[in-house]
């Protein structure tokens, strides 16, 4: 079930005019900012389908930039996101694309600074809800409804079990889990949605597991 809470239906409280094109877009921008872990210096945003056709009218562009500035859907500052970005020297460009994606409201966000680049694709599925469908080329499905762990690792037998065991030992319950890889035996990404916020100790334990390259978290 994509919609789990009554507040997915009666909510969110948001700045207008569109739940899918404004609030959902702000949430895609904000989760990109969260996973990136810091304010990016620049962003390139590729819009598809209805996003590409109608983004100006719906304020999709200011909403995504607002999200990348860590503004929530009800934050009045969304309206001045472009000016706010300029003030801190955060530059961005929008590219409406003609290619047809599976979902009509798709945005691909590439963010970066001198230390690294990240690419995230999100879809806005209605009523202000969104899902991340791709991260740095890995297909995945992440709703942002739960705290989540992102584990980048080598594709090796037994690794999923050792991560799951480490969580189980700490009494952390897994709500949803996805594993994606680009090529057999190569780099893979594990996305684990959990019921509790993960503490730093837990993260350190996961980081020292063999074949694990990177661990990051998203709070709810």
């Amino acid at each position, binding site marked *: 079930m994509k*919609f789990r809470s*009554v507040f997915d239906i*009666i*909510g*969110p409280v948001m700045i207008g*005019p*569109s739940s899918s094109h404004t609030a959902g877009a702000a949430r895609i921008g904000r989760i990109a900012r969260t996973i990136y872990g810091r304010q990016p210096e620049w962003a390139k945003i590729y819009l598809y389908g*209805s996003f590409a056709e109608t983004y100006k*009218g719906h304020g999709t562009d200011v909403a995504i930039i607002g999200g990348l500035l860590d503004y929530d859907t009800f934050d009045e500052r969304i309206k001045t996101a472009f000016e706010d970005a300029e003030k801190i020297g955060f530059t961005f460009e929008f590219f409406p694309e003609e290619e047809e994606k599976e979902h009509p409201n798709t945005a691909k966000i590439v963010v970066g600074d001198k230390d690294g680049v990240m690419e995230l694709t999100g879809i806005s599925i*209605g009523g202000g809800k969104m899902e991340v469908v791709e991260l740095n080329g890995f297909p995945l499905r992440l709703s942002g409804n739960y705290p989540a762990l992102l584990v980048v690792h080598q594709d090796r037998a037994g690794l999923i079990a050792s991560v799951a065991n480490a969580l189980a030992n700490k009494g952390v319950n897994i709500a949803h889990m996805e594993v994606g890889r680009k090529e057999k035996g190569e780099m893979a990404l594990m996305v684990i949605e959990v019921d509790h916020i993960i503490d730093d100790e837990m993260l350190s334990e996961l980081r020292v597991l063999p074949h694990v390259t990177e661990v990051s978290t998203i709070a709810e």
Partner: protein
Amino acid sequence: MEVLFKSVKELVALAESKEKPISEIMIEQEMLITKRSREEIIAQMDHNLTVMEEAVEKGLQGVESTSGLTGGDAVLLQKYMEKGNTLSGNLLLDAVSKAVATNEVNAAMGTICATPTAGAAGIVPGTLFAVKDKLNPTREQMIHYLFTTGAFGFVVANNASISGAAGGCQAETGSAGSMAAAAIVEMAGGTPQQSAEAFSIVMKNMLGLVCDPVAGLVEVPCVKRNAMGAAKALVGADMALAGVVSRIPTDEVIGAMHRIGQSMPSALRETAKGGLAATPTGKALEAKIFGGASVNSDPASL
């Protein structure tokens, strides 16, 4: 995920067997799914209700969108009602004007609560604040009204769609009007089954409604579709309370809405390429607002 109900049939059966209103079943499911306390859940809905109240008040004072396409109609309607010669009655027009007020605030990038979307945000609060004067509900009953709309919306969102880009306007104002009708019935003392009938009656009259916003803005025709959505919700609720039933069961009506949405061409699903958006005036307005050069002006896409 364990839920108490996945269909309207299950929702009504549960309400009947537990002898509880639909709103109560929704609250219980929310507690089950989110593991939050009843107080927390009620408090959050109370906050959403306050946001709705403030949006209606703001809209009734008069707002205007940046494009200049919408704003001020809620004020016109209230002034007209004050003259006392309305044909369709003050309660109905009050709902219409308050739905319009909310959507005018939304179009002006004000703060609203999506119900279930921002484009359809006028109908649920518009009807609620209109029937309030007639039924004199407590604050708690008004909060329950929102949970009832949420219960029906939950079924629609998970079995069909509440997104105009996916299912057209029938998924947005169609869902909102049907959800509101069901909640009006509960507030007026109708049974859970009558709520379901009201939902079906309204949804059947929303089927096929396309999403064709002029210039891609949530203004024309969205504001007026909220107006009529509120009117249909009230009439549908009255019909169900009178004992009128839908020959097609609610879940099958929702299924029909889903299939119709899937077979709608993309030009009529929030791309601003078809319908009213593609009329000569619609295109002229778009050119005026965005300065002509636009990705939306391809006549072949019709």
